[in-house]
C-alpha cells in the first residue's frame, strides 16, 4: 500500500528546533530547519543523522521548505546547508527570504561575539545559504521536479508566514505552523476548505491555550504608556525594523488624538527608512489596517509622531520613543536605555522575545544591575514591561483549521505528549491523530485514487447486463482488460484489447473421459444422464440434442460403448476454459455413477 512517512527531527514532542522530514511518493522533503533556543550545545540543532550518517544531505532531500522567519524554524538552516552540506533548493516566501538573513546575522553576532561560541555558522555561510533560496509567491504552483508540486498560502502568523501544500500525484500533505483567525476568514483561504489532504501537519504548542483578545493586549499597552506619560516619565519601546512598530504607532496615534495628549512620540529614523522599504515590497502581506494607512498616506506621516534625533533623549518631560534594535543589544535603543534607566518614572516596554545574552533578556528576567563596558554598572530603576502581541492560533483556531481542511490524518508536533492527551482525544472524535516524538516515524497508508478511462463499448455492455445504474458510492465489480500505455490507463473489453494489441484469441477446451458401469444402450444411458443432471442442476440450461449429445450450458456430453467391457460406457465431456468450474463439477458428479 502506498505510504506517506513523517519523521520529526526536532519539535517532535518538544518545543523548539522545528524540523520535519516527509517522504511522499518517493520524494523527501524537509519542513523547516530550526534552532532550539534553550540549548547552548549541539542539542540546539536538529539531529540530521536520521537522514544519513555520512555527511552531505543533497542526495537525500528533494527540497527544503521554510515556513517563516522565526529562529526556531530557520535558525539551523545555514548550519544544515553549509556545515552539514546541502545544495538543493530551499523554498520560502519573499518576506521570509528578506528577513531571515537579518535575524540569522543578528543571532550569529550575539552568539559568537557576545557569548564567544565557536562551533557556529559564519556570516559568509549565511550568505551562501541564502543563495540557494528560491522565493515563493502566494498561490503559485511550483514544480520542484516532474512529480513534486508545492504551493504557499497565507498563514498570517508573522510577516511572510506561509502554509504549504505539497502534492505528488494524488497524495498531498499540508504543513502549517500556526494560523490565525484572519487567515482562515481571509478570502484567499477558500483553498483550505475541504482540501482534504492525506496529512495535515500542525503545531500543537498553542492548542492548549485560549487567547486573550487583541483589544485587551492593546488596552494594557495604552494603559502603561498613559500612566508613565501622566507622571512625567519617558517610555522606550525597542522594536525590530519590521516589527510591531507600525501597528503600535497607529494605535498610539489614534489614542493620542482621542485623548488630546500632547507628549511627543518619536520614531528613530533608521527604522523609518528600512521599514518603509520593506512595507512597500510586502504590501500584500500586511493586514488591512496597515494597508489602509499606507495607501491613504505615507506610512510615517503621523500627526503626533516625529522623527527622532539623539539629542531629544535629554529633553525634559514625558515622551515615547520607538528605537531599534529590539533586544537592546546595541545601537540607538541601548543608548537611550542607558540614559533613562536610572529614573523610576520611566518605562521600557519590550514587545517580543529576547535572545539569551542580550540586555533585553536580562532585564526581562528581573535583573536590576547590569554590567556595561568598562566594568561600569547600570542600576535599572525604570519600570520594565514585557508585552506579547504575537498572533498565533489557539485551541479554537486549530480546531477550526482542522475542520475546514478535513484531513485524512492529523499530525501534531511541538507539544509534550503527556499534556496533549485531551487534545488528541478531542481531534480523534473526528479525525485520526498522531503525535510522533523526535526520530519516531509515522507511516500512514494512503488511498490514492487511480483514474482509469473506460471504453464506451465496455460501459454499454455493463449496462445491458442490467442491475442498478452506476453509482459513485457503490463499487461494482466488472471484467475488462487494463491497458497501461505511457501515463494513461484504459479499461477495455478483452476483444478490443486483443485487437489493439494485434493478438489472436485462442480458445482452450478440456476433454475428460469418464467410465461408467451401465448395461443400457447408448441412447438410454444418455437419456438417464440427461434426467439425472436435470434433477441435480436445476438452475442450469440442460439440453438433450437430436445429434445424440447432452449439453449443460456449453459443456458437451457424449456417450459411447466401451471397447473392452460390454457393460461399460465411456462418457466424453468437453468444455471450454470459461466453464472450467462447471466442467470439473460434472465430471466428479458423473464419476459417482447414475442413480438406479
Amino acid at each position, binding site marked *: 500500500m502506498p505510504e506517506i512517512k513523517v519523521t520529526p527531527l526536532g519539535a517532535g514532542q518538544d518545543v523548539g528546533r522545528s524540523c520535519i522530514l516527509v517522504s511522499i511518493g518517493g520524494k523527501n522533503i524537509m519542513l523547516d530547519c530550526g534552532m532550539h533556543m534553550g540549548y547552548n550545545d549541539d542539542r540546539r540543532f536538529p539531529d540530521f543523522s536520521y537522514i544519513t550518517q555520512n555527511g552531505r544531505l543533497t542526495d537525500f532531500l528533494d527540497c527544503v521548505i521554510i515556513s517563516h522567519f522565526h529562529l526556531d524554524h530557520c535558525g539551523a538552516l545555514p548550519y544544515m546547508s553549509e556545515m552539514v552540506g546541502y545544495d538543493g533548493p530551499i523554498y520560502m516566501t519573499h518576506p521570509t527570504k528578506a528577513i531571515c538573513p537579518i535575524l540569522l546575522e543578528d543571532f550569529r553576532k550575539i552568539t559568537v561575539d557576545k557569548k564567544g561560541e565557536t562551533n557556529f555558522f559564519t556570516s559568509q555561510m549565511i550568505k551562501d545559504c541564502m543563495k540557494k533560496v528560491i522565493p515563493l509567491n502566494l498561490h503559485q504552483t511550483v514544480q520542484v521536479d516532474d512529480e513534486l508540486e508545492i504551493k504557499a498560502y497565507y498563514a498570517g502568523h508573522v510577516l511572510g508566514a506561509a502554509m504549504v501544500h505539497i502534492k505528488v500525484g494524488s497524495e498531498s500533505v499540508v504543513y502549517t505552523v500556526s494560523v490565525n483567525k484572519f487567515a482562515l476568514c481571509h478570502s484567499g483561504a477558500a483553498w483550505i476548505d475541504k482540501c482534504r489532504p492525506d496529512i495535515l501537519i500542525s503545531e500543537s504548542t498553542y492548542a492548549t491555550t485560549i487567547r486573550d483578545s487583541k483589544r485587551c493586549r492593546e488596552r494594557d499597552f495604552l494603559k502603561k504608556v498613559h500612566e508613565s506619560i501622566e507622571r512625567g516619565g519617558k517610555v522606550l519601546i525597542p522594536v525590530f525594523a*519590521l516589527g510591531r512598530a507600525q501597528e503600535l504607532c497607529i494605535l498610539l496615534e489614534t489614542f493620542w488624538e482621542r485623548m488630546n495628549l500632547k507628549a511627543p512620540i518619536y520614531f528613530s529614523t533608521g527604522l523609518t527608512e528600512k521599514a518603509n522599504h520593506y512595507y512597500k515590497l510586502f504590501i500584500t502581506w500586511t493586514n488591512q489596517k496597515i494597508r489602509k494607512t499606507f495607501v491613504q498616506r505615507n506610512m510615517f506621516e503621523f500627526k503626533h509622531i516625529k522623527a527622532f534625533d539623539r539629542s531629544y533623549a535629554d529633553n525634559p518631560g514625558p515622551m515615547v520613543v520607538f528605537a531599534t534594535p529590539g533586544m537592546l543589544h546595541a545601537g540607538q535603543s541601548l543608548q537611550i536605555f542607558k540614559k533613562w534607566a536610572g529614573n523610576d518614572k520611566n518605562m521600557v516596554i519590550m514587545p517580543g522575545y529576547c535572545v539569551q545574552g542580550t540586555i533585553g533578556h536580562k532585564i526581562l528576567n528581573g535583573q536590576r544591575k547590569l554590567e556595561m563596558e568598562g566594568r561600569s554598572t547600570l542600576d535599572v530603576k525604570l519600570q520594565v514591561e514585557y508585552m506579547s502581541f504575537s498572533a498565533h492560533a489557539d485551541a479554537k483556531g486549530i480546531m477550526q483549521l482542522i475542520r475546514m481542511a478535513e484531513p485524512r490524518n492529523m499530525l501534531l508536533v511541538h507539544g509534550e505528549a503527556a499534556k496533549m492527551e485531551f487534545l488528541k482525544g478531542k481531534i480523534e472524535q473526528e479525525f485520526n491523530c498522531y503525535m510522533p516524538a523526535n526520530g519516531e516515524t509515522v507511516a500512514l497508508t494512503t488511498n490514492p485514487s487511480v483514474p482509469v478511462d473506460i471504453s464506451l463499448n465496455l460501459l454499454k455492455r455493463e449496462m445491458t447486463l442490467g442491475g442498478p445504474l452506476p453509482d459513485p458510492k457503490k463499487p461494482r465489480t466488472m471484467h475488462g482488460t487494463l491497458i497501461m500505455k505511457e501515463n494513461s490507463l484504459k479499461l477495455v473489453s478483452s476483444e478490443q484489447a486483443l485487437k489493439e494489441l494485434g493478438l489472436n484469441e485462442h480458445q482452450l477446451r478440456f476433454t475428460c473421459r469418464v467410465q461408467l458401469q451401465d448395461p443400457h444402450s447408448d441412447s438410454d444411458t444418455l437419456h438417464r444422464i440427461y434426467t439425472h443432471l436435470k434433477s441435480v442442476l436445476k438452475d442450469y440450461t440442460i439440453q438433450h440434442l437430436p445429434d445424440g449429445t447432452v449439453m449443460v450450458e456449453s459443456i458437451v456430453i457424449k456417450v459411447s460403448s466401451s471397447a473392452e467391457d460390454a457393460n461399460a460406457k465411456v462418457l466424453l465431456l468437453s468444455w471450454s476454459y470459461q466453464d472450467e468450474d462447471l466442467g470439473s463439477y460434472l465430471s466428479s458428479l458423473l464419476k459417482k455413477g447414475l442413480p438406479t
Partner: protein
Amino acid sequence: MMGETEAVEIDDILDDWFIESLKSYKDLHVYQLEHPTQIIEWTSGKTVCVAGYSSGKNEILELRLPLRLLADEKKGLCAERDFKVVHGGFSEGPVCCLRHIPGTRCAVTNDGLTSDLQLWDLGADDTDVIRKTGSLPGTSVSQAGSRITARLSSPPQVLHGAQSSGVQLTQLSTGQTLYRLEVDSTKPLSSLKFVSETAFLASCCDGTVYLADTRTSAPPQASPPPGECALWWTDASAASQCRVIMLSSSGQAVVSDLRNLGGALCQAQLDVQTSPRKPEDVTVAWAPALDGCFSVSGLSGLVQIYDTARWRAELQDASPLFQHAGHSVSSQHGDGSAPIFITTHVWHPERPRTLLSAASDGSVHVWDWVDPQTN
C-alpha cells in the same frame, strides 16, 4: 509581527467603553471559548472549571488563569495573558452544575435534567485528561437539576438535591447517605450552601429558606419568603457576621442576619432590565473579600456590584457601585439574533476585586475593577 485583523465594526463600538476601561479596570482579559459555559467553579486559587451545556456531548475544561493576572509585583515581567487548558474531558450530556470537592481532585456535576450526579477525577500533573469515575443517584423524580455544594471534610462528602424534600448528604466513596433534610414540602431549590461545617441553607425558588444542620435530624428552621414574588435567589456570606442576601426576580434585594432570617437588616430596589424567568438566569454572590459588597448578573446584560453599606431598612432604589458591560459591548452576535445574556459569574476567593464572568456567546471575561470612589 503582523497582527490579525478583527472586524472593523466591532472595533468602533468598543472604542468608548474601551477607552473608559483604561481607568475603570486594573486588569481586563477577554476570552472566547469554543462553546458557552453555564458554570465557573474554582478548583484552586489559580484554576477554574468551565463546561458546555448543549444537549449532546460537551467538554469540561480546567483552565489556569493568566499568569500575568496573578503575578502581582512581578507583573511587568510576565507577558502571559492567555488561559491555559490544563485538563479536559468529555461529558455525555449537558453540565449545568459543577462543584469541586475541597481537598480533593474530584468534581461533581449534574446535567440539569435529573437529580443524578456524575463524579469526575480532574487529573494530576502527569496527565491532562478529566475522567468520569462514577455516579450517584439522586432522590427526586423531578425534571429539574440538582444544586450541589461541598465543604472540606474527611472523608469527602457532597450535599445535593433538586427539591427541598430531596436534599441529602452523601459520602463520595461509598455512596452512603449520611443525612437527609426532613421537610414535607417539595419546593424546587435555587441554591444549597454551607454556612459552617455542618449548618447549611437550602434556599427554594419561591423564597422559602431552610436553615438546617447535618448533625441533627431535628426539623430545620424555615423562613418564609420576604415578599411576593415568583423567583428568589439567595447567598450567604462567609464573613464572621454571616449575612444573607435574598434577591427577587422583580429586583427586590433584602439583607438579613443568619441568626434572624425573617428580619430584614436593610433592603433596596435594584433596577431590572431583563426579567429573569428561570432559576439559572440569575447569579447573586457576596464578595469574599469586600465587606458588604455583592454582585448580581441576570437582571440586565451586565454584571453589577452593589455596596450595601449605605442601605437602610426602608425599601429605596439603589444604584450599582460598578457595572461590567464588557459582554454586551463586545458581543459577537449581530442584529437579529437573540441578545446575549450572562450565564454565570464568580468572585476570586482572595483578590478583593477580581471576578470572572461568562456569557451565552461563549465569552469569558476576567476583570479586576477599580473602585470609582477611590478616584
